[in-house]
């Protein structure tokens, strides 16, 4: 057999496990143990340096396939929405910090002056929050609406950008066999109207779907419906986002 210089290799995550570490075969605990070990083992450290580029080259052997364009829409809808939320949270923290800073002004300052500053700070805060969708002068007019979700652990939000509206969900359970989730639009005083947006989340419970013609709707709803969708909701409302 041509197993030249094969060494007997004891345990998991121990000396000589550089190859299986680099190939991602070690459990997390053993992986950590190996990294610790390699810090002080010249043999394993050399193996990591020598074998790492070989593992990194393996993806290049794969026939190249174009990624589907809808995958990008999904990913970027989530990214844009999270970036907007983070910016808003950050500016909210900034306003809060400014407000806290102002409250730390010496108490001997006149009550009237402090009240005036407080009103000003409150005005800034309210102003900042009263344009919850971050339109403003940037011209991006991105808006994000958190939705109420009746499923434990799941979350959902609407993201509107450049005239398109997207519903992004996370940690949604799989719909029952033969069922899908369906998106509905509800105008004030009207009955829910079906859309073409039917979806099932990924294995991790994530999904992003377009919500057509959402402009003017008061609420966006999601129910679980038989595959192919329904013309009227047959199940309870699982997600509701208030747009009005």
């Amino acid at each position, binding site marked *: 057999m*041509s*197993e*030249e*210089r*094969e*060494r*007997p*290799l004891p345990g998991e995550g121990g000396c*000589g*496990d*550089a*190859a*299986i570490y*680099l*190939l*991602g*075969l070690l459990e997390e605990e053993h992986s950590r143990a190996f990294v610790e070990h390699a810090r002080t083992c010249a043999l394993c450290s050399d*193996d990591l340096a*020598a*074998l*790492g*580029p*070989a*593992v*990194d*080259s*393996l*993806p*290049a*052997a*794969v*026939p*190249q*396939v*174009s*990624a*589907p364009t809808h*995958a*990008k829409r*999904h*990913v*970027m809808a*989530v*990214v*844009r929405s*999270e*970036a907007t939320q*983070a*910016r808003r949270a950050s500016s909210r923290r900034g306003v809060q910090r400014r407000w806290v800073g102002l409250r730390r002004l010496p108490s001997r300052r006149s009550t009237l002056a402090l009240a005036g500053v407080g009103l000003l700070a409150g005005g800034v805060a309210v102003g900042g929050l009263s344009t919850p969708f971050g339109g403003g002068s*940037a*011209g991006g007019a991105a808006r994000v609406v958190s939705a109420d979700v009746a499923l434990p652990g799941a979350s959902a939000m609407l993201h509107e950008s450049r005239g398109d509206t997207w519903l992004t969900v996370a940690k949604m359970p799989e719909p029952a066999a033969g069922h899908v989730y369906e998106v509905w639009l509800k105008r004030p005083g009207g009955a829910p109207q079906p859309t073409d947006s039917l979806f099932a989340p*990924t*294995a*991790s419970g*994530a999904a992003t779907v377009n919500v057509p013609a959402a402009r003017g709707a008061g609420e966006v709803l999601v129910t679980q419906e038989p595959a192919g969708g329904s013309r009227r909701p047959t199940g309870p409302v699982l997600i509701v986002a208030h747009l009005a």
Partner: protein
Amino acid sequence: MGSRGHGFLAAARRSADRRKLADEELMGLVRTGDGDAFEIIYDRHCDAAFSLAYRMCGRRATAEEVLQEAFLALWRTGGRYDRSRGSVRNWILRIVHNHAVDALRRGVVRERRLLHEEGAVERVAGSEDTAEWTLDRERAHEVRGALESLPKEQSRVLELAYFGGFTHIEIASMLQLPAGTVKGRMRLGLAKLRIAMATEEGIGR
């Protein structure tokens, strides 16, 4: 020109400027929550990422899930990128590989595992609906050549481990070999692969 026109031009210029940045510089912006920088990273690497996921999972739908999960993980953990540990592309492909292995181990693509067990692993992934990319073709040719130059028993364990997502224990059981022998074949295979590629690149002397 109105302020709106100026705003549009400024945004276009900013976007064009970003596209000139190296991956490592873009990752610095991603770390600050810059979605535009992330989009450029996505555009540059999504095909390689999808190709790897598709090769491993054997199904477009699963590969799409892996692609999306991996890039969202990348977006949320962009701060963990450490340029001293390699290129952005290699880092992304490692994340994709990990997610694909998770998908395989979740049993999402059991049929794929059966295919592997039946020895179909040597077959190159189907090319339906695919297009070879000229840019990467040379590199792909080199790596495939290097893989083919390995002794069969070494390339087989590497393929089963890396593309099939099987652990060395599973491979040992599948091939009825001691686990130590499988580990040894992996190590030797990778070492030879490295040498073969260095030789092909003309830097192995």
